C-alpha cells in the first residue's frame, strides 16, 4: 500500500498537521512532489526561520500578564506561525497534559508551561516528562508541590500514569500509584506566593520532603527518586515493547488521524518510539507517512475543537484578527483555553459538539462574517473572489466551498447554499449576479453559513 500524493492529500495533511491551509499553501505543499518531502517540510521544522514572525508577534503587544493575553498569544501562533506542526503539537500537549489558570493562578506560570511544551514538542519524550513533572504550573495543578513524605498526595502520580504515559488499562495498580507518589515527594516549589501574583515560583527538589525509603514501582524495588520513577514508567515493557510507546502512539493517532486506531498502527508507532529512543518527532513522521493516515475514512472525521475552529476560519479565509472575539467566545464554545475544569482537560471529538456550542460557534463565525470595520476579526470577500468568475451563485458557492475545504458536501447542501444566494428576503427566488451590494450581503452570509455547516466543524 502506498500513498497517492494528491492535492487533496496535501490539504488533509495541512488540516491535521496544522490548522488548515489557504489555496496557495496547499499548492505549495503539493508541489513538494512527494509525501516524504511534504512531511519533512512540516516535521523537520527547526530549520524554518522564526525571526520575522516572532518580531511581528511581539509587535502586537498582547498582555502576557493576563489570561486573555496569553490566549491571544497562543492563538496567534497557531494561526500565523510558519511552523504549523510545532504549534499543533504544542496544542496537543496543552490538551493532553493540561493545567488550568483558576487553580495555578500565576499567568506567567501558564505561559512558561506553554513555552516548555513547545520546546520539547518533538524531542525525546523522557526529557519532556521530567521537565513537565517539574513544571511549576503542573506542580500546582496536580498538587505535587504540596506532597510530603508522610502521607504523600497521589494526584500527580495517578494522572502521570493514567492520563499522561500509560493509560488506565495498562495494568498498574493502586499500590503503584502510592509508590510513585512517594518517589515524587520532594519535587516542590519555592517562591509560590501571592506577593508577585504567584508568578515567581520555581522548581526545587527539597530532600527534606522526600521519602527516602524503599519503593516498589511496577515490580522494581529500590530507593527511587522522581526521575527514577519516570524512567521506570517510560521503560515498562511487555512482549510488544514499551507501554508508554503504545500510549503515545494512541494519543498522537487519535489526535492527528482518527478515533480508535487499529492495534497494528499502535504497535507500529510504538515500535518507532522504542527504536528512536522515544523520539516524538519520529513517531509523528511515521504517522504522517502511514498509508492509513490518507485513507478516506480518516479524512474529514476530526471534529475541530473550538480553538481549531477559531484558528482555521481566520487562516483559511486569510483574515485579520487580534483574536479578541475568539477569546471572548472560548467559554461558550466549551473550551476556555488554559482553564479546563479538571485534570483530563476536555474530551475530544464529538464531545465538543452540542446544540449550545453550535450556537456559540455561530456567534463567533458571525462576528467574523459581518465585520465591515477596520478592527477585530475580519476578512475581505472581494479578495477571496478576485480573479474568479463570481457572477453567479453556483460559482461563488464552489469557490468558497473549495477555499474552506468543504466542496465535497452532499449535493443538497450545495443546492441549499445556491438557493440562499439567490433568495430574496421573503424567500422568493431572486438572481445573484455579483453586484457590490449582493457581495456585501450574500457572500458574507454564505461564509457565515459555510462556517456553521456541519462540514466545516470537521477537518
Amino acid at each position, binding site marked *: 500500500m502506498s500513498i497517492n500524493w494528491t492535492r487533496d492529500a496535501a490539504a488533509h495533511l495541512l488540516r491535521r498537521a496544522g490548522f488548515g491551509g489557504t489555496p496557495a499553501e496547499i499548492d505549495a505543499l503539493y508541489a513538494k512532489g512527494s509525501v516524504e518531502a511534504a512531511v519533512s517540510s512540516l516535521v523537520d521544522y527547526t530549520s524554518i526561520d522564526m525571526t520575522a514572525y516572532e518580531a511581528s508577534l511581539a509587535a502586537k503587544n498582547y498582555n502576557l500578564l493576563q489570561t486573555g493575553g496569553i490566549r491571544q498569544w497562543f492563538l496567534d501562533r497557531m494561526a500565523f506561525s510558519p511552523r504549523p506542526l510545532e504549534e499543533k503539537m504544542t496544542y496537543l500537549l496543552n490538551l493532553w497534559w493540561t493545567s488550568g489558570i483558576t487553580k495555578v493562578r500565576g499567568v506567567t506560570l501558564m505561559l512558561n508551561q506553554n513555552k516548555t511544551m513547545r520546546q520539547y514538542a518533538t524531542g525525546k519524550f523522557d526529557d519532556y516528562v521530567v521537565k513537565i513533572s517539574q513544571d511549576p504550573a503542573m506542580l500546582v495543578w496536580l*498538587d505535587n508541590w*504540596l*506532597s*510530603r513524605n*508522610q*502521607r*504523600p*498526595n*497521589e*494526584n500527580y502520580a*495517578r494522572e502521570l500514569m*493514567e492520563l499522561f504515559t500509560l493509560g*488506565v488499562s495498562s495494568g498498574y495498580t*493502586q499500590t503503584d500509584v502510592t509508590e510513585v507518589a512517594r518517589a515524587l515527594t520532594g519535587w516542590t516549589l519555592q517562591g509560590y506566593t501571592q506577593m508577585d501574583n504567584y508568578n515567581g515560583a520555581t522548581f526545587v527538589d527539597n530532600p527534606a520532603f522526600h521519602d527516602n525509603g524503599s519503593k516498589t514501582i511496577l515490580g522494581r524495588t529500590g530507593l527511587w527518586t522522581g526521575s527514577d520513577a519516570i524512567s521506570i514508567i517510560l521503560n515498562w515493557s511487555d512482549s510488544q515493547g514499551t507501554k508508554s510507546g503504545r500510549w503515545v502512539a494512541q494519543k498522537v493517532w487519535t489526535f492527528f488521524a482518527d478515533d480508535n486506531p487499529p492495534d497494528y498502527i499502535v504497535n507500529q508507532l510504538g515500535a518507532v518510539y522504542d527504536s528512536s529512543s522515544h523520539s516524538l518527532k519520529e513517531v509523528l513522521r511515521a504517522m504522517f507517512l502511514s498509508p492509513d493516515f490518507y485513507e478516506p475514512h480518516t479524512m*474529514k*472525521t476530526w*471534529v475541530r475543537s473550538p480553538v481549531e475552529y477559531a484558528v482555521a476560519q481566520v487562516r483559511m479565509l486569510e483574515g485579520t484578527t487580534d483574536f479578541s472575539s475568539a477569546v471572548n467566545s472560548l*467559554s*461558550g464554545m*466549551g473550551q476556555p483555553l488554559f482553564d479546563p*475544569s*479538571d*485534570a*483530563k482537560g476536555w474530551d475530544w*471529538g*464529538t*464531545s465538543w*459538539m*452540542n*446544540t*449550545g*456550542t*453550535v*450556537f*456559540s460557534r*455561530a*456567534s463567533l463565525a*458571525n462576528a467574523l*462574517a*459581518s465585520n*465591515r470595520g477596520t478592527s477585530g476579526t475580519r476578512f475581505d470577500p472581494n479578495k477571496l473572489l478576485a480573479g474568479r468568475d463570481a457572477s453567479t451563485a453556483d460559482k461563488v458557492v464552489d469557490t468558497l466551498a473549495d477555499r474552506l475545504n468543504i466542496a465535497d458536501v*452532499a449535493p*443538497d*447542501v450545495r443546492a*441549499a*447554499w445556491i*438557493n*440562499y444566494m439567490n*433568495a430574496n*428576503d421573503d*424567500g422568493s427566488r431572486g438572481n445573484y449576479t455579483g453586484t457590490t451590494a449582493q457581495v*456585501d*450581503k450574500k457572500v*458574507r*452570509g454564505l461564509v*457565515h*453559513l459555510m462556517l*456553521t455547516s*456541519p462540514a466545516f*466543524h470537521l477537518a
Partner: protein
Amino acid sequence: MSISRRDFLLRSAGFVTVSAMVPRWSVTGARNFEESLGSAYPGRTLVVLELMGGNDGLNTVVPYTDNAYSQVRSRIGIPAGSILQLDSKLGLNGMIVNGGTKPAMGGLKALWDANRVALVEGIGYPNSSLSHFTSRDIWHTADPTLAQRNGWLGRFLDGYVGNNANPLVCAAVSNALPRTLLASKVSVPSFVSIATYSYSTDGAYPGDKSNQINTFVAEGADQYEIENTLEQVSVLSGLAISSSTTLQSVGNGYVAGGQYPAGSLGTGMQLIAQIINAGVGAQILYITFGGFDNHADEDNAGNNGHNGLLLTVSDSIKALFDDLDAHGKSHNVLLMTWSEFGRRVQDNASRGTDHGTSAPQFVVGNAVKPGIYGTAPSLTQLDANGNLLIQNDFRSYYGTILSDWLGADSSAILGQAWPNVGFLNKSYV
C-alpha cells in the same frame, strides 16, 4: 422553519437500522427498546445534579460521634460544634464559610426538616475504580464493564420518550452533553442561558435572517443514513433551532422566587426553575458543578474550599425548591445528586483527600420518604486501599428512581433487577 422531534425520528429510523448491523451494547438482559413506550409520568421532572471531581462524603454527611472520625480527619475534619445534626450519629457540614453567617449545608438542612430529603448512605459499586474518568463513565452508563455506549438516562429516553416531539423533553444545563443523556433515538440539547441560545446572523441585513436560518437547518438535514461523525454533528442544527424557539419562550413573565447563589450552579438552577415553571414538558434536566477533587487545601475558607462548594450546592438546591414552591410547581419535581466517588478516609499531608469509593447522595422532593437509608459508614473496616466499604449499589439508587419516579422498567434499563432502596413514596401521585 422549526423542525419537530418527530421529523428527526423519521429520519433517524435509517440510522437505527444501519447501526443494528454493528455490535450492540450488551449488558446481560438489557433490552434494546425497539419502540418507545411513552412515559408513565410525563408531567414529572427529574433534576440530576452531578458533583464533579469526587465529593468527600465524610465531610458532607459527618459521622460526628465516631471517635475514629476526629482521628483520621484531625486536620480538616468538621468539628462537632459545626454539625447540623440529622440523628445521633450523622450530621450535615455546618461550617461557616468565607466570613459569612450561614452554615454550609443549612439550606439542605431546612429541606430535611421539612421532610423533603432522603439521604442514601454508602453508594458505590464493587471493585471501585479510583480513576475519575473510568468511574465517571461507569456512573454515566450504569455499567461497570463499560460495554454500554449510551447513558442510563439515555436508555430511559430511548425507551420512554423517543416518540416525544418536544425538543426540551430532556436538556443539559451545561456547555457539554453528559454521557448519562447519550441515547440512540433522542438528541438532547445543551445550553447555559436563554440569551446566548440562538443562531446569530448579520445585523446589517435583518431581512435575510430567515433565509439564513432555513439554510442553516437545511445544511444539517437528510444526512442520517449512516452513523458517522458528520451525521452526529448534522443532527444538531435542526434541534438547536427548534429547542431555541421553545427555550426563548420560557423566560416570559418569570419572576424568581428563590435566593440563588452567584455563579454557574445558581444561574443554572434558576434556568431549571424557569423551564419547569414554564411547563414545557421537560422530564429530565441535568446540571453539573465541579471542583470536588480536593486533593489539597480542602478546608480552605474560600468559596472554592470544600465547605464553600457545599454551601453553593446546598443553597442552590434550596433556592430551586423555594422558587418552585413560590410558583406552585414543586409537586412534580425530584432532584438527585451523584459524584464519581467519595474520598479516602485518612487525609493526606497536604490538607486534602485522595480518591475513594462510596459516598452519601441526596434525593430531594415531596415524593421522598424522608430519612437515612443505610448507616453511618465504618471508618475502621476499610478496603485494602483504606477506602470505605459499599452499602448501596449505585444501580439500586438509579433503579429506585427509574421505577418509582419515572415509572420505567428499571431492570430492562439496568440489565437486571436491583434491590429497591425504598426512599420514594410509591403511591405518590
